């Protein structure tokens, strides 16, 4: 049994979907004992998928399984007096409660922070909601799509396009806004837990997923504070900006015979080495490609020449040749490529867990390794609905 970094820390995860459960998942993989408290009909994530053969099944939702591995699970009707009592019993022995209801709904059951702190004064109570428990949008409803767009990220995802009015901003795949909300919650909660270890104090933490998303763009916000305009989404305006020397990174995607490769030989020395990878083509000596500024200004023509060359080779070949010359370049990988990636395999990034209903699956593991402490990344599969009712709830009585 691997102890992890947080032995003895007990967490109640009253979250549904992604944001709060992701926070609790992080705490679980750091070694906390996390008890997931689900309503009788189960967490919303059990209905989210992906499902094997696209057939919905409450014990086989990929997102539920990924978000809730390494947790224990109980089911409780918090609206019933017995359920509320049991919840209070669990909260009395917890260090942390994580929730993501519409603002105030645990309070509606008489189970808000004000109640719980009378039972457990050192409790850390973390709420993750789309806009936090504050401000004019406090009661606004938002999903991942809405938060990705409202926070400014969608505006930048596609880069510049020919016609913005027929090519709208789009969101990234997955559930990035909800994951960021969960990561912000885990960060703040672990800081609060550290304070609790030193001072004994608990607290209530209010997380806004919107602010967590906005906070990913602090350099853009700082530009606004200095009166700079937002980067244009209209390609014609980008050309003007480039001519005025405002766009500096040289990099992009090249077509290959099996997909794409992303390259960025932005410094002059990198560019020299990149030309070597391409066997020093004759056009490279032309004046319009000889300096970084010149390459930036003539990038459409340049990119065409690069693409003619790259189309003859595979993305993995080009990435390897480039990296051998210390040029930043990587294949544009699909999920399939990830399972064949030597680096991820060598670092044992994927973690296989056997689940009684969904079978053996490989889950993304942790991006970090601690030299002196192992992490319990595969301690147990996500709980079946109500799986630990008997072992956990009966102990309370």
């Amino acid at each position, binding site marked *: 049994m691997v102890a992890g970094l947080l032995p003895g820390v007990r967490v109640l995860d009253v979250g549904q979907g992604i944001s709060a459960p992701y926070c609790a998942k992080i705490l679980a993989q750091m070694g906390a004992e996390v008890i997931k408290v689900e309503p009788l009909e189960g967490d919303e994530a059990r209905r989210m998928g992906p499902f094997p053969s696209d057939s919905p099944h409450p014990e086989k939702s990929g997102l539920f399984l990924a978000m809730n591995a390494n947790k224990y699970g109980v089911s409780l009707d918090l609206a019933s007096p017995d359920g509320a009592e049991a919840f209070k019993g669990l909260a009395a022995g917890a260090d942390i409660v994580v929730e993501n209801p519409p603002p105030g709904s645990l309070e509606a059951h008489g189970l808000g922070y004000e109640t719980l702190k009378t039972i457990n004064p050192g409790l850390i109570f973390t709420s993750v909601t789309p806009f936090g428990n504050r401000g004019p949008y406090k009661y606004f409803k938002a999903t991942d799509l809405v938060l990705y767009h409202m926070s*400014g990220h*969608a505006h930048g995802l596609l*880069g510049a396009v020919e016609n913005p009015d027929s090519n709208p901003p*789009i969101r990234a795949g997955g559930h990035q806004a909800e994951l960021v909300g969960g*990561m912000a919650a885990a*960060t703040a909660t672990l800081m609060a837990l550290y304070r609790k270890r030193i001072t004994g104090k608990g607290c209530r933490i209010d997380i806004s997923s919107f602010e967590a998303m906005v906070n*990913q763009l602090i350099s853009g916000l700082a530009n606004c504070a200095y009166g700079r305009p937002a980067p244009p989404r209209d390609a014609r305006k980008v050309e003007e900006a480039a001519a005025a020397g405002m766009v500096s990174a040289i990099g992009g995607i090249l077509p290959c015979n099996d997909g794409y490769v992303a390259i960025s030989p932005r410094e002059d020395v990198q560019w020299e080495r990149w030309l070597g990878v391409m066997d020093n083509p004759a056009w490279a000596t032309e004046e319009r490609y000889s300096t970084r500024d010149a390459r930036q200004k003539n990038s459409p023509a340049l990119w065409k020449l690069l693409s003619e060359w790259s189309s003859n080779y595979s993305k993995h070949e080009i990435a390897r040749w480039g990296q051998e010359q210390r040029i930043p370049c990587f294949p544009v*990988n699909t999920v399939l490529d990830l399972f064949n990636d030597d680096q991820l395999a060598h670092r044992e990034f994927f973690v296989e867990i056997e689940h009684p209903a969904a079978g053996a699956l490989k*889950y993304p593991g942790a991006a970090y390794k601690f030299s002196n402490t192992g992490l319990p990344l595969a301690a147990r599969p996500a709980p079946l609905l109500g799986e630990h009712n008997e072992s956990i709830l009966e102990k309370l009585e």
Partner: protein
Amino acid sequence: MSDLPLDGVRVVDLSWIIAGPTATRFMAAMGAEVIKVGSGRRPDPSTRGPAFQAYNQSKLYCALNISSPEGLELVKQLIAVSDVVIENFAVGVIDRLGLSYEAASAARPDIIMVSSSGTGHFGPHKDYVAYGSLLQHYTGWNSISGNPGGEPVPGGLWADPWVGMELAMVTAAALNNRALTGQGQYIDFSMAEALTAGIPGAILDYQMNHRVPEPMGNRDARYAPHGVYHCVGADRWVAIAVTNDEEWQSLCAVIQRPDLAVDPRFDNADGRRKHQEKLDAAITQWTSLLEDHEATRRLQETGVPSGPSLDICRVFNESQLREVGYINQIQTRDGELRELPGLPWRFEGGEEPIFTEAPILGQHNEYVYQELLGLSEHETNRLVEEQIIY
């Protein structure tokens, strides 16, 4: 003594560019004393321009040439009186400088050392040269982002800020463990793995259904309608996500289409997904006559998840950010009062996070070398002249 969570924690910040400085910004705002160590020999690219104010708020900044023997000795003395060291140089650089975890923990046995790199610090591709934007391609993150059938997207700015927050998180976890056990850590962090960990649905879909998940633009595998709809004005859109039948009924009422509300083809999400082009057209008829914030207001009034699709300057002006105090006014050294970003969380009833202007290189030399390390003024001056403190 403040009441902030990281009060009393001292961080030696050798990091640069975006990810590392983002992590230490969180720590500094939450009460840690973050000492950014840099050198005029090789300035941090992120200290140019307005981004400097965002990434380096609330920190101290001393100058030190750590590639000189005396500079190395001084940074070790600083580590000896600190709790955390963080760096995000290319793999191997910190070891060549003589500041491996072994060296750092010799100076301070319970030090927490956080090392972040593109692909992690061991493995066959540990030396791969990486930028965050390229890692978004390498890790599959961009493979599910974009328009269906389109070219891979550039991907926006995601990797570095995402990793920055996660680095603060792992540091807080290690501090907890040290408080419990007295033990420090070396943390090997891979930016690539942090991004791949952000697409669990796609990774499980591939295993469950033997298909490579593809980008869906604004669409969703489950919900409909789900997209952005053109409003009054160039490139103005409102995002709408209907996540259940009740919200669908509310949407039909707002857009004044009672006929759609009773049409059995649209009774459930599967039906609505099948006919989403038709529904999108009906919604656009309504949104195209409204400003994006006005459309949002009307939709939210009846409980339909929605919001305008904003560029960063419109985000900056959002009433929500201003009224909740996310944007703080800070006087910067140019004499202006600037509105700068804060933190995405509140510790209710607790002390406000610390936000001060970003420092300039060498601003806190006297504090670091004389007060903390006990050097004399004379000795400090010699080190400045010899370009050790530089």
